[in-house]
């Protein structure tokens, strides 16, 4: 674990894996005075209460993710994405098998970014861990469900994007006017079900 200075009131905590990111996030998430806590692929950005943060990190066990409050979210998906056949071909299975693999797994929101409410979900079966498209789409429709590398995600709104799209959902992923604007938050458990 490496602590990198980030201005006067923030630290970038660099670790070696998503599991260690989850451990750092869990250790810091209830600390008083923390203003921002932003997990990412190999880092956690923390702003505020730096003295207490350093104390906690001095003794944190990176091999153990403590149980934290975590919500269960179910996302209904219509599996008719434009890249479903490509994903099946790459995995050397049938499209039906891609659907079964994707919908049978349990995922966890590792972090959010790219756009409000865009959650990077881990737990993707190995055969579905595939590269991005060679050429990104200029417009991915809102609700598209895609895969890229070790992650799967649903697009909260229409944006450019290079993920392989296997389906779509009608569920609202982000609504700034709602009491809980983001459907997905870091640490949440997620399942996809066939709509």
């Amino acid at each position: 674990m490496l602590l990198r200075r980030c201005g006067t009131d923030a630290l970038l905590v660099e670790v070696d894996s998503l599991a260690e990111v989850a451990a750092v996030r869990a250790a810091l998430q209830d600390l008083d005075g923390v203003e921002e806590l932003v997990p990412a692929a190999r880092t956690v950005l923390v702003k505020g209460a730096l003295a207490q943060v350093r104390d906690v990190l001095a003794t944190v066990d990176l091999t153990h993710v403590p149980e934290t409050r975590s919500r269960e979210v179910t996302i209904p998906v219509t599996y008719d994405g434009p890249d479903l056949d490509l994903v099946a071909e790459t995995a050397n299975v049938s499209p039906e098998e891609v659907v079964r693999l994707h919908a049978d797994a349990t995922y966890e929101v590792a972090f959010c970014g790219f756009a409000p409410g865009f959650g990077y979900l881990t737990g993707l079966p190995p055969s579905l861990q595939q590269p991005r498209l060679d050429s990104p789409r200029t417009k991915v429709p809102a609700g598209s469900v895609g895969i890229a590398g070790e992650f799967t995600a649903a697009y909260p709104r229409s944006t450019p994007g290079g993920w392989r799209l296997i389906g779509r959902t009608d569920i609202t992923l982000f609504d700034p006017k709602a009491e809980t604007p983001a459907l997905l938050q870091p640490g949440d458990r997620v399942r996809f079900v066939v709509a």
Partner: protein
Amino acid sequence: MKRTVTIIRTGPQALVQDLGRPGHAHLGVPPSGALDAHSLTLANRLVGNEEGAAGLELLLGGAEITTDVSCTVAVTGPQVQVWIDDRLADSHQPLHLPKASTLRIGTPDTGLRTYLAISGGVDVPAELGSRSTDLLSGIGPDPLRDNDVLPLGRPNVPTGADVVPPVRALQTLVIPIRLGPRDDWFEDAESQLRQGSWTVSDRSNRVGARLNGTKLNRRDGEIPSEGMITGAVQVPPDGQPVVFLNDHPTTGGYPVIGVVDRDHLRFLGQARPGTSVRFRPIS
């Protein structure tokens, strides 16, 4: 009945801004808020509002408004001419705006952003705790258009400061910067920052101040996306730094050579394209 303000003309760009919505970066939500928060809070104090009330951020001034009730208004930011019903009035102090009269704001000679506070504050619905327009992610009210009507909150009695100084827009900014978190991507980051010189690009916006000038030499490659903080100086492969301002993306994959102190970001928010920029690394 709700008090309202009508935006007769927006000028080049008129946005509703308050102090933003920090604390939601883990959801991918930028902080947003007034780029020169100092000028907005002063304007609010002049009209008796809470410092964090929503006002208007006007790019290069140029707006014209009217209200359906008499109210107190204040215009802050760089020195600028204002008129009430075509009579010259003073910026940077409270002004009485009689019912149905018109406030017109000129174009400042220097600086970039003018702030207008109205007694009671702009009372559009808050999203994630803020009324600010976030131009990156589309949260908050849309950018204002001519003839938009906005609700106003309940006014307080103005107290406190009665005149405030205008923002002095400098021709050359010398900006303190703290190295890290990714200064190890650069050979002698401190010297490169200290010896370089840049100008503010006309492609700058609320997402970031883009700088043109000395190429910062860095390693090739990208970092797995990591959290970004306001004031982070990101260096893309072309070596031209971008200072993240309030509507910045919450994560990014280019190395951050250093972070500008929050207190100095407002000067970048007021810096016109062409303004000279130098960095002063501090440890």
